[in-house]
């Protein structure tokens, strides 16, 4: 088996394990940690097949922005002394050992790739510039449709959320 395959399967295993763990956790915060690891693992897979730009976007946008928002919301929802107690439980070694282990595998992998090879291991490397030219050249329509899709999602989420929230509060609007 070649080294690229080993690296791929390692990252894929981490991604699968962390996704399954994310789905089976009872605690939302724990599930989110595993979800972030799953996203990091797919970012590594993107890097390995020669899409460094997609890998960076995966980390910056998914693991970075969106997941941090999720974590914030989840944490804001359990404030107070009960929250303190819960936070104490989160620091239990049993809780952070597994995520740390999975992250370590990914970390070793990325260190190996960066130190022994200068570029992605398989496939053709797609630079950010190529992606940009494609997106605003032949695929400009796709970008525009995606923006309409986001508009639909935004209007829908706003409308449903507002109506149900005010119902729950006993408002008449």
């Amino acid at each position, binding site marked *: 088996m070649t080294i690229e395959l080993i690296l791929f399967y390692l990252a894929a295993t981490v991604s699968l394990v962390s996704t399954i763990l994310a789905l089976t956790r009872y605690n939302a915060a724990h599930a989110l940690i595993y979800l972030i690891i799953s996203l990091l693992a797919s970012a590594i897979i993107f890097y390995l097949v020669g899409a460094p730009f997609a890998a960076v976007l995966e980390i910056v946008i998914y693991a970075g922005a969106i997941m941090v928002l999720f974590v914030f919301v989840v944490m804001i929802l359990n404030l107070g002394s009960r929250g303190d107690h819960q936070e104490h439980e989160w620091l239990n070694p049993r809780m952070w050992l597994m995520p740390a282990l999975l992250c370590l595998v990914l970390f070793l992998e990325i260190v190996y790739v960066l130190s022994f090879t200068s570029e992605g291991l398989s496939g053709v490397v797609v630079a950010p510039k190529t992606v940009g030219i494609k997106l605003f050249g*032949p*695929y*400009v*329509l*796709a970008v*525009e*449709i*995606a923006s*309409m*899709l986001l*508009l*639909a*999602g935004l*209007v*829908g989420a706003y*409308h*449903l959320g507002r*109506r*149900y929230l005010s*119902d729950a509060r006993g408002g008449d*609007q």
Partner: protein
Amino acid sequence: MSGLQLQALLPIITLSSLILIQMMFIAFARNLRLTVSISVIALLLTALSFFPMVDHLPISATPLIQLDGFALFYSGLVLLGALMVTFLSYDYLRDQGERQDEFFMLLLLSCLGALILVSSNHFASFILGLELLGVSLYTMMSYPTRGLFTLEAALKYLILSGVSSAFILFGAALIYAIEGKLGFTELAGMNHTSAASGQFILLMGSTMIFAGIMFKLSLAPFHLWTPDVYDGAPAPVTAFLATVSKGAIFALALRLFTTTGLIDLDPLLRGLSFVAMVSILAGNLLALLQDNVKRILAYSSIAHMGYLAVAFVVAGKAGGQIMAMEAASYFLFAYFLTTLLAFSVVTIMSIADHEVDTTNLGDYEGLFWRRPALAAVFTATLLSLAGIPLTAGFIGKFYIFSIGVAAEAWLLMAFVVIGSGIGIFYYLRIIFAMTKAPRTDVKIEIPTASGWVAVVLTVSLVLFGVYPSPIIDLIGELMISFG
């Protein structure tokens, strides 16, 4: 990008910009009448913007969009469906409190998604169009006008539809892994060119896409969501789901499988025949057990999608492709008219009800005495669904039957005959219920817009059932420029 290509994108540009204008109006001056007027204007202008390009077909504008006669015909159907649903929703939502404006914006957005789907020539626009259609539809379904009851339907549809979209994405990824291309035209003939090791993955990929599309069309082994969603969603939204959403996805499936040549894959074609037979049987048999008009219509739509799948199977056999596409197009046209009309009756019946839609068979008892005109219209619809002569539904079924006979698909034809036979029974059951003595004397108000929708649809249902040649000629002319 040349002027011609821009012209081809004109409908999409028109509709998108009018959606934005409508959004601005909603943001600054909420007025339901104004919002609905903008919706109607947007749909009419979009329909008009197709005309300048008629002489230049087919045009491919960017790798994503291919406009030909086929796309034009289905765009027309989508716009017709959306227009009718707009009128129905106006009556349905008018007295349900304030802030109903966003509904019409979402309706236009999902209509945009459907327009992209029918002219899509690339997996990227396929998936984006599908999601645009779907995401707007989830909100429209759960639009909180009548309590939280609709939320269940929307949640069911959201989860199952999301899973099927994931299947389609994964299938597209497998095909890309073998071929390295995503455009339908570029993929043409791929099942003959790739190596034997690639064949298996290609088959896996196309089967996954196939399964995803079957789900969205609610064909039989994938139909479990249909009755609940039809039942739970507001009546105009169900009409939209049953016609525009399914019609656009069917058009896309037809284009995808014929352009890429995937339809020649033998296992796929055999699977499709099986799905068609099971759908016809399951849809018709399960409809027998129902006492709820919306659920009967849901099962009957499963059976009708089965009849459509028969045309799809015939399209895969050598020689019959263009004929099969014409038959499928006419059948779908008749299905659009009939289903829209059926749900406009359900909408009119439900408007007075503020909790849930009026769907129990008992509520329709004595309709012939309470509102003869409405009952007559509903009877015409049900006869058209059953495929009785003098209605558009008959011509559609006859068309399917004739291509099936020409292609010598005897087993499939047997199922179509058995299915139609069973179908007549439960359609007549509704008609008999309407002739019984009325339970109440409560007057049913027929609102203006929905009333006109019903009149227009009934007239065209009978007109194109008696004199179908204008539509058949139109379809024949448009199909020539396919591809």
